[in-house]
Every structure is written in structure tokens, then in C-alpha cells.
């Protein structure tokens, strides 16, 4: 009899341990990568949460293309990958998660533009749910706005990077304003520096400076960058905070306006091995090939023209490397390291990177 009781107790013990079920059906409905069979060099991995994919090309007449799309595990996409579409018009794609409960709509377009000019005229709203932040209509540009929106749980009146009607030309210019921060994600962020840059942004909680990924592919047909030009105004704010949240009396903030051309390994663009520069190395990396930089972006009350030649450290060689080009506009020069003055504003309009054919 006693044996039965011991067995019974053991069975009861083990009955507490349930069994691991089969994996639930995936709830994600993302486009992981979007490319074209006809144009292997045009491929992007869209940021999670964004719903627009815009390709830019200098060649007119690239309309009918065959997309090569990968989506989240188990998800389906309509229209299907591999079905040619006319991408000169916006094509609407709907991704449905494996469990069929979540849908994510994307618009995809191939724009024939000169990608190296930005008038900052067209802005729109992006994000999900209550977190809505301004983005440039030209998706080769990004800002830290999604990070600020997430840190403040969407309770933001004016994002650090936003449009202003005070334009040099056209309807809008880009306004960048350094704002007071706080403690976010267990990190002391004394200030939210404002920046707008050609590249991508995705929050890296372990190292904020690495949240920014500078650079967009610069193919050979775009030419050799020679001149970086545009219009800017600057007003230094106060007080100036250092990275430890201490006020630095008398320190005057400066903005940052520069363009950097850098090299990457061949064929990595749009893949897992993609290479970018970030806040820690944008001006110091040994991948840098050329820089055009306003040396001192100090108080400048009226729109002022700038035209700066690229200074090359080495020659471009497309046989050995691929290249990326970024333009960085920031209201606090040392903002990547959380040093800057609250209220510093940089206004920029009509930026252009002038290139000459090889």
C-alpha cells in the first residue's frame, strides 16, 4: 500500500510541470527586405514600424520592376513577391501575420529624383499608435524623433527635429532644437540633441550613440561628391549641460553641419552585414574617405549660404569598396555625447551635395 502512496505523490509532483506547447503562430507582419530582381543594388531592410518604402533613382523609365520581398516568418504578402508592378506609381502591399490577426500596410514607390538635393519642403507623420512624430517625406533621411517619442511615451508637443515655415525657399525648412532630457531607459539623457541625417535610426538601449546609423548607399552613377552647399541659421541656447547633467557656465553651444563619404565592404548594403558609421565614429572612423564640414556653426541670425568642398583622404575605388554618403545636421555639435545647450536651434534649407561624373 505504501508504494502506491509514494507513486501517487510523485505523479502529483510531476503533474505540476506542464508541457511546452508548439510555438504560437507568429504575430509579426513586417517586410524584412525589399529589392528588385532587375536592380540587385537597390535593396532595403525597412525599419520596424515604418510603413513606407521609397526608392530613389536618377534613371528615368524604371517603372515596371519585379519585386523580391521577404516578410516575417509565416506571414503572407499581397500582391505577392515576384509579381511585376509599376513602381512609378505607389504600390500598396499588405502583409498579414501568420496568425492572421495583424496586418501591416506598406506603400512602395520608386521615385526618379536627384537624391542629393533636399529642400525640406515635404514632411509627414510616422509612427504607430500614440507615438506620432514628424519625418521627412524623403526616407533616405532619419532623425532621433522615434527615440524621443518612445522615451516620453508619445507625450511630446514639439519634436526636436521638425518642419518650420521659416524657409529660405519653398514651403518649409528643417528646424532642429536641443531639448531638456531626463532619465530614460536607465540612461541619463541630460539633453535631447536634435539631428537630421541621411541614414537610419533604431534604438539601441545599450549604447545610445549607436542608435543612429549614418549613411545611404552612394553608387558610382551618382558621381564623385565635390561640394556640399545649403543655407543655415543658428542660435545657441542656454544653459549648457554636460553628459553628467551639470550646467557648464559660460560654455557656448555650436551646431554641426557636415557631409561624410565613407567606404564599406562590397555588396553588404541591405544585408545583415550592412555597415554604417554611428555617433561614436562619424568624424573619426578610418572608413572615412571625404568630409565637407562647416568648421564653426555659431550664432548666425539670418539665413547664410554655405558651400564647402569635400576634402579627400583617399581616392574612391569602386573595384575594392562600396560607398555611403551621409549628411548630418545637428543642433548641438557634441549631442551624440549628451553635451549641449537647451534651446540651441539650427535651421537648414536647400541642402545639396554636388557630384561630378567619374
Amino acid at each position, binding site marked *: 500500500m505504501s508504494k502506491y502512496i509514494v507513486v501517487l505523490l510523485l505523479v*502529483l509532483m510531476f503533474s505540476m510541470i506542464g508541457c511546452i506547447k508548439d510555438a504560437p503562430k507568429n504575430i509579426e507582419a513586417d517586410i524584412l527586405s525589399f529589392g528588385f530582381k532587375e536592380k540587385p543594388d537597390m535593396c532595403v531592410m525597412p525599419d*520596424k514600424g515604418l510603413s513606407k518604402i521609397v526608392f530613389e533613382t536618377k534613371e528615368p523609365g524604371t517603372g515596371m520592376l519585379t519585386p523580391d520581398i521577404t516578410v516575417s516568418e509565416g506571414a503572407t504578402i499581397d500582391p505577392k513577391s515576384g509579381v511585376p508592378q509599376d513602381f512609378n506609381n505607389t504600390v500598396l502591399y499588405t502583409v498579414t501575420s501568420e496568425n492572421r490577426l495583424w496586418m501591416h500596410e506598406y506603400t512602395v514607390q520608386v521615385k526618379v529624383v536627384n537624391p542629393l538635393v533636399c529642400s525640406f519642403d515635404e514632411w509627414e507623420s510616422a509612427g504607430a499608435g500614440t507615438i506620432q512624430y514628424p519625418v521627412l517625406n524623403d526616407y533616405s533621411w532619419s532623425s532621433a524623433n522615434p527615440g524621443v517619442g518612445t522615451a516620453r511615451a508619445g507625450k511630446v508637443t514639439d519634436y526636436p527635429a521638425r518642419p518650420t515655415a521659416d524657409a529660405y525657399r519653398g514651403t518649409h525648412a528643417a528646424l532642429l532644437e536641443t531639448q531638456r532630457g531626463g532619465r530614460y*531607459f536607465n540612461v541619463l539623457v541630460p539633453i535631447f540633441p536634435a539631428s537630421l541625417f541621411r541614414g537610419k535610426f*533604431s534604438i539601441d538601449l545599450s549604447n545610445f550613440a549607436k542608435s543612429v546609423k549614418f549613411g545611404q548607399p552612394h553608387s558610382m552613377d551618382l558621381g564623385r561628391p565635390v561640394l556640399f552647399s545649403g543655407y543655415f541659421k543658428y542660435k545657441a541656447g542656454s544653459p549648457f549641460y554636460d553628459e553628467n547633467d551639470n550646467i557648464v557656465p559660460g560654455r557656448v553651444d555650436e551646431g554641426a553641419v557636415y557631409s561624410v563619404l565613407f567606404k564599406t565592404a562590397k555588396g553588404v548594403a541591405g544585408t545583415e552585414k550592412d555597415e554604417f558609421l554611428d555617433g561614436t565614429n562619424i568624424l573619426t572612423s578610418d572608413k572615412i574617405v571625404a568630409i565637407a564640414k562647416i568648421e564653426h556653426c555659431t550664432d548666425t541670425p539670418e539665413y547664410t549660404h554655405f558651400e564647402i568642398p569635400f576634402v579627400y583622404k583617399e581616392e574612391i575605388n569602386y573595384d575594392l569598396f562600396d560607398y555611403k554618403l551621409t549628411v548630418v545636421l545637428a543642433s548641438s555639435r557634441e549631442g551624440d555625447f549628451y553635451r549641449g545647450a537647451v534651446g540651441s536651434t539650427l535651421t537648414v534649407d536647400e541642402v545639396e551635395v554636388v557630384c561630378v561624373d567619374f
Partner: protein
Amino acid sequence: MKFVIYIIVTVLFAGQFTVSAKNKERLEHLIVAGMNIGATSPGNIPPEVRKVTAWYPYSSFQLGYNIVYNMNDRWAAGSGITMDNKGMGVINEVKHLYTEVRLEADGNYLIGYFSGKNKTDVKMAYITIPFFLRYRLGKQWRLLSGMYASYAHSTSFSGSVWDGYLRTPDPTGLEISIVNREDATFDFGNDMRNFDFGLSIGGEYRINSRFKVSGIFSRGLTSVLKRDLKFVPFNMYNMYMMFGIAYLL
């Protein structure tokens, strides 16, 4: 709470008021002490939990008083009052678990679907009233079965998530990677129920005229979490095995 007080009073004074002098010989008064080892977990492991990497018990002692009335040679009925602590910790890997996490130090909350590693610590301190029938199987062995009602005077349900990412506010939203173990935590201690009610079954072995050892499995039938708590999308039940000794007064 009134119910609990009523039961305590009934149990403590049952002997004095209702049992005649002759019947007193049939009463046993016992001091019971033991350890609860088990888990507070969903009845079935939900599909969002992909892997349980670690489980550890917390020091969950039980100490109480039982009174048992022998109805005849075979059958007895008992009740009592017990300080009853239950607790455990678990580390698991989850996929797309709907939850709310607090970003440490700034106090902001993020809601969304988390995939990655999760550590949950559950601790509850109950006052428990058991009711049980006891059946004598032989000279040494007794079988026990019954139910219990518990009132929790202290609860905690907390933990952290790391090594993964959160899609906020829904699966089509931003993807936020949460790397370090200290970055994001949760605490649903205030969202726990005060009451637990459940069933128990077990056995005891008589060592000598004074001492008995026992093993009793108890299974809660009410979720330890309030029903309107959205951020743990499943019910959690107490499932604990009590290993103890009883001393006959």
C-alpha cells in the same frame, strides 16, 4: 475577510463548545511545520512560453495548528489554521508575450509584445484554513484529501525582461531591443488577489505515537492575479507540494 475570521473562530473553539467530554478522547491536536515547494504557474504552459530555463523555490515555510476528529477507526475529519508561505522564481524564454514593462529609473511604461528572456518572482504569504478528511490505510499510512481557503496578507509578483525585443504598442509598431537585465522590469504585486481557494490531496506516515511526516499537494482553483489584469494574459494558479512533519500534542 469576515469569512476567514468566522472560520478561525469556529475551528479554534470547536473542541470547547461542541465536543463532549467523551468525544474529547477522539480529538487530536497537532502542530504542523513544513516547506511548500512548487510553482505558481498557468494550468497549462501557454504557447508564448517557449522554454523554461530555470526554476527555484523560495524559502516557503508553513507553520500551523491542526485539529482532527476521529469519527471511527478509519475516518477522521480535520481543520486548522496555518501560516502558509508560497513562492518561486522562474526564468524562461517567451515569444510575443503581451506585457507592460517599466523602463527602469525614468519610470516610463511601455506596452507591447515581448520576445526574449523573462524572470518572474512570485511570493505570497497566506493565512490558510484547511479542511480535510483522513482515511487510515494501515498501521502507518493515512490518506488525506480536502480543500483550503487562503487569505494573502502580503504578495509580490515581479521580474524583468532582457535579451530580446519589444514591439510597441502592437506587433506592427516600433521594435525596441531590450538587452540588459536591468533595463526593463515589471511589478504586478498590487494586481494580485487576496484570496485563494483550492483542493488538496496527500498522505502521511506515522513514525511513532508523537511524530508523523506528510506530503500534501495543493492546487489553487482561483488565479492569483486579478481578472482584469491585461498584462499577464493568462491565469496563474498555485501548485505546491508541502513536505512536513506533524507533532501530536
